[in-house]
C-alpha cells in the first residue's frame, strides 16, 4: 500500500532553479542540459587575478564582442558532461572495433606502401595541430564568459586531445614509434608545415577568447577537417586502396560534422545580437580564413598535388557559405 502512495504525485513547489528559470523563460520543467546553464559566478568578485590585473576573474570585457546574456550561446547538441562522455565512449568503442578490424583482417598488409607513406606523412604531424587546438580551446574555456559557451569549449579541447592520441595510435599502427619522431621533425622543420605552425603559435598569443575561437575553431578547423579527412583521406586515399586509413580516421569527419553545429549556433547568436558583433566577427573570419588558407596551402599541396588549390578553394567556399548562413559577411 505504502508503495503505491510513494509513487503518487506530490505537487512540486517549483520546477527548476531560479537562475535556470530566468534563462528558459519561466519556472517550468527544465532539461538536464538547461540545468547546467548559468553555472558561472558573475558578481562581487574579490581579488583581481595576479595574471590579469585588468579584468575580474570572469569578465566579459576580455572580448570585443558584447552580449547581454552570455548564457544564450546554447549548444544545439545540448551536451552536458554525461551525454558528451557517453557519446564519446560509444564513438571510441567504434574506433576500437575499427582498429581491431583493420589489424585482424590483414587490411594493413593490403595497404599499398605509397598510401601508407602518404598517410603517415600527412597525418602524423597533425598530432601537434590537435595539441595546439587543445591549448587554444582550454584558453577559451579559461578566459571566455558564461558556462553555456565555456563548457563546450573544454569538451572541444579534450576532443582534440583525443584526436591527437588517435593520430598517435594511427601512426603507431601503420608504422613504428619512430614515425612519431619523423612527424615531429617535419612539424618543426619541414617547410611544408611551417606556415601552419606559425599560424598556431601566433594564435597562442591572442588574448580575446572569441577572436581565438574564430581563428581556431571557425577558420582553421573549418578548413583543415574537410581538406584532410574528406579531400585527402576519403576522396584520394580510400579509392586508391586506402580503405584502412578511412576507417581509422572516420571519427574525425564525424566529429567535425557534429561540432560545426555548435560553432555555427554560437556565431549566429553572437552576430544576431548586434551589427557591431557581426562586423567584428566578419572581420576576424575574413582575415583568419585567408591566413588559414595560406598556411594550409603547402600541406594541401603535399597531400593532394595539383588538385590542392581546387580542394582548398572548395573547402573555403563551403566554409564561407556556413558563415553566411550564420549571419557573417565573408
Amino acid at each position, binding site marked *: 500500500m505504502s508503495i503505491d502512495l510513494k509513487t503518487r504525485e506530490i505537487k512540486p513547489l517549483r520546477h527548476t532553479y531560479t537562475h535556470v528559470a530566468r534563462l528558459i523563460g519561466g519556472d517550468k520543467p527544465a532539461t538536464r542540459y538547461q540545468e547546467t546553464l548559468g553555472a558561472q559566478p558573475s558578481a562581487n568578485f574579490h581579488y*583581481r587575478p*595576479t*595574471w*590579469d*590585473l585588468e579584468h575580474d576573474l570572469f569578465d566579459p570585457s576580455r572580448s570585443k564582442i558584447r552580449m547581454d546574456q552570455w548564457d544564450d550561446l546554447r549548444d544545439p547538441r545540448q551536451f552536458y558532461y554525461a551525454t558528451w562522455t557517453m557519446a564519446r565512449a560509444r564513438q571510441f568503442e567504434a574506433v576500437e572495433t575499427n582498429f581491431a578490424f583493420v589489424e585482424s583482417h590483414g587490411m594493413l598488409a593490403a595497404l599499398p606502401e605509397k598510401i601508407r607513406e602518404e598517410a603517415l606523412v600527412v597525418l602524423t604531424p597533425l598530432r601537434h595541430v590537435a595539441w595546439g587546438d587543445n591549448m587554444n580551446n582550454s584558453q577559451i574555456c579559461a578566459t571566455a564568459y558564461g558556462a553555456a559557451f565555456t563548457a563546450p569549449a573544454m569538451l572541444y579541447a579534450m576532443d582534440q586531445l583525443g584526436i591527437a592520441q588517435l593520430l598517435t595510435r594511427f601512426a603507431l599502427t601503420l608504422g613504428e614509434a619512430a614515425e612519431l619522431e619523423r612527424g615531429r621533425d617535419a612539424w618543426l622543420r619541414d617547410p611544408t608545415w611551417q606556415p601552419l605552425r606559425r599560424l598556431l603559435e601566433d594564435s597562442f598569443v591572442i588574448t580575446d577568447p572569441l577572436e581565438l575561437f574564430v581563428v581556431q575553431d571557425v577558420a582553421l578547423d573549418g578548413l583543415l577537417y574537410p581538406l584532410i579527412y574528406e579531400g585527402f583521406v576519403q576522396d584520394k586515399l580510400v579509392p586508391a586502396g586506402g580503405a584502412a586509413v578511412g576507417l581509422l580516421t572516420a571519427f574525425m569527419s564525424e566529429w567535425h560534422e557534429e561540432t560545426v553545429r555548435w560553432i555555427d549556433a554560437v556565431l549566429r547568436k553572437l552576430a544576431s545580437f548586434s551589427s557591431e558583433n557581426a562586423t567584428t566577427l566578419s572581420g576576424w573570419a575574413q582575415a583568419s580564413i585567408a591566413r588559414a588558407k595560406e598556411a594550409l596551402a603547402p600541406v594541401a599541396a603535399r597531400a593532394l598535388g595539383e588538385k590542392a588549390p581546387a580542394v582548398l578553394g572548395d573547402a573555403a567556399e563551403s566554409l564561407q557559405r556556413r558563415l553566411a548562413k550564420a549571419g557573417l559577411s565573408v
Partner: protein
Amino acid sequence: MAVKTVKPYRFAPRDTVDKFPAPILYIGWEDHMMFVSPICLPVPPDTPFQALMDKILPDAYGMHPDFAKIDWSKVQWFKSGKPFVPEPAKTLRENGLGHKDVIRFRTPGLEGIGGAYF
C-alpha cells in the same frame, strides 16, 4: 612582502571611510558569545561616548539578561586589546576612535548564560 604578479598590483582598499555613511566601529562584549562576534556599526564620529553607552549598546545587547545587571562603574574598556579609559562626555573622535577601530568591554562578574560565556 608583496603579492607576486605579472604587473604592479595595487588597488584602492575597498573599505575606506569615504565609502560608508559614517566611520565603522566594532564593539565586542567580552564573555558574551550569544552575540557571536564583535558587532560592526557605522557611528558618526561626533557621537558622544555616553550616547554609545546609553543608546547603541542597549539596542545591540539589551536582549541579554546580563545587560541589565551591568555595573557601568566597573566596566573595563579595551581598544585594540589594550586597556582604554573613555571619557563619556567626549565624542568618539575625541576619544581617539576612528574608522574600523575595535573596542571591547568586560563586565566583571557577568559570564553569560549559565556561566558559559554566552
